[in-house]
């Protein structure tokens, strides 16, 4: 019998709330099937199963909040037809859960079956109640597990799994705290697993800003564009030539067909959230401005759709005109690149032997060195720079 447990999204996650079972007892599940929606600090996450089998029993009720590691369901592995054998030998490692940051679940150590001492009665009661004997502390001679030990463990488990009232909607403060923890989990994973390389280039923004000022003069106030829409469009357009940067690293490099820019939005109360701007390369600057006008207030109110949090193929962070000169980003796994823009500053620029003062933007790229090399990244930044010299073509 396989135990399906509440997954962990990281070391700081202690519990999750089951919002919906997608299966019922008796259902056959295949590898990759989504079997539950679980609300976590990242919002509602669809949980997949990684082995085929038949759902034997659902142990957690909808809207119940349970600690990470709690057994939520029992699943009979494919091929095992008869009633399951006593549950003292659960297999722990055949299930994994995937979340949108692909945070790996810390493996639950396989139980040490050898040397497990328990009375036949204790074994029978444990099997009848689907209790894993390896989780029971024996109080008998030499640590042997007695009937009393098993009954006590069952009682404790039942209290833990007793249905509780539905969790109230998260308060903004709680949500902000959750987001902080989600960022912590994703960035820790990135720093642990992704060998970053960093590149930087300075971009003369004279032409782009002049074009923007001209465009905005002809528009009503409500239709004005911000410089960032040009940065989003130029990034997306440049990525068409560098598909290895618009990809994820999952058992090797996997290019993505759509260019969905994950746009970093900082929350005033701390933390950040990164919704996707889908097909950004195909949107005009006006379309992109409209998208931002829709996305940013919803993101700050934490009212994004789950798909908006899971479809990004690359991340873009722009510090804006009040920000630092440059930003060197941390890649959001499993993506393979993040593009960073600092504030636009007036700087002396030498050109054709003459020095002038120009608005200059420092653009950076952090790339996953497993996926690409500095040469690719360097060429990408050069393409980005070229596109921003022709703002009318964006």
């Amino acid at each position, binding site marked *: 019998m396989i135990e399906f447990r509440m997954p962990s999204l990281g070391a700081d996650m202690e519990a999750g709330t089951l919002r919906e079972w997608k299966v019922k007892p008796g259902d056959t599940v295949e590898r990759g099937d989504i079997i539950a929606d679980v609300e976590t600090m990242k919002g509602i996450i669809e949980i997949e199963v990684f082995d085929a089998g038949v759902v034997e029993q659902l142990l957690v009720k909808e809207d119940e909040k349970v600690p990470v590691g709690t057994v939520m369901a029992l699943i009979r592995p494919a091929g095992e037809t008869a009633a399951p054998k006593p549950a003292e030998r659960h297999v722990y490692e055949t299930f994994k859960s995937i979340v949108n940051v692909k945070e790996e679940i810390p493996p639950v150590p396989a139980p040490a079956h050898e040397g497990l001492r328990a009375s036949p009665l204790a074994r029978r009661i444990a099997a009848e109640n689907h209790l894993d004997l390896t989780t029971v502390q024996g109080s008998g001679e030499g640590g042997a597990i007695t009937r009393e030990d098993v009954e006590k463990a069952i009682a404790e488990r039942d209290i833990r799994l007793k249905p509780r009232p539905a969790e109230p909607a998260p308060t903004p403060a709680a949500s902000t705290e959750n987001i902080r923890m989600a960022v912590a989990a994703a960035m820790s994973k990135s720093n642990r697993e992704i060998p970053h390389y960093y590149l930087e280039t300075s971009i003369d923004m004279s032409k782009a800003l002049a074009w923007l000022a001209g465009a*905005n003069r002809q528009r009503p106030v409500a239709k004005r564009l*911000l410089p*960032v829409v040009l940065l989003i469009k130029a990034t997306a357009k440049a990525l068409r030539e560098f598909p290895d940067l618009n990809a994820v690293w999952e058992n090797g490099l996997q290019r993505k067909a759509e260019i969905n820019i994950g746009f970093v939005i900082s929350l*005033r109360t701390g933390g950040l959230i990164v919704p996707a701007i889908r097909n950004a390369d195909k949107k005009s600057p006006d379309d992109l401005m409209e998208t931002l006008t829709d996305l940013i207030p919803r993101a700050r109110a934490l009212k994004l759709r789950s798909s908006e949090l899971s479809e990004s193929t690359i991340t873009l962070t722009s510090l*804006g005109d*009040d920000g630092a000169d440059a930003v060197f980003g941390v890649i959001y796994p499993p993506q393979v690149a993040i593009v960073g823009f600092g504030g636009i500053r007036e700087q002396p620029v030498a050109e054709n032997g003459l020095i002038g003062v120009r608005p200059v933007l420092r653009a950076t790229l952090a790339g996953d060195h497993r996926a690409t090399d500095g040469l690719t990244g360097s060429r990408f930044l050069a393409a980005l720079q070229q596109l921003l010299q022709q703002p009318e073509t964006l």
Partner: protein
Amino acid sequence: MTEADIKTTIFQLLKRIAPDTEPSTLGPTDNIRDTLGIDSFDALQFIIALNEKLGIEIPEQDYGKTGTLEQLIAYIKTKER
């Protein structure tokens, strides 16, 4: 509009755009964006809201004249004349 009316309107609009801030704590010479943590997107939304509410259009080249509460009130009064 009196100066007090303008100030009330400014606070209302800022609160609508950035609900998690407290515009009423702004001092006359505080930089509005820095003090409230408003980015360029919210700043544009504020300018759009002022346009809708008061009919005042602030061109981009005048953004620098509206940085503090004191400056913004003075600017709006000038435009009202």
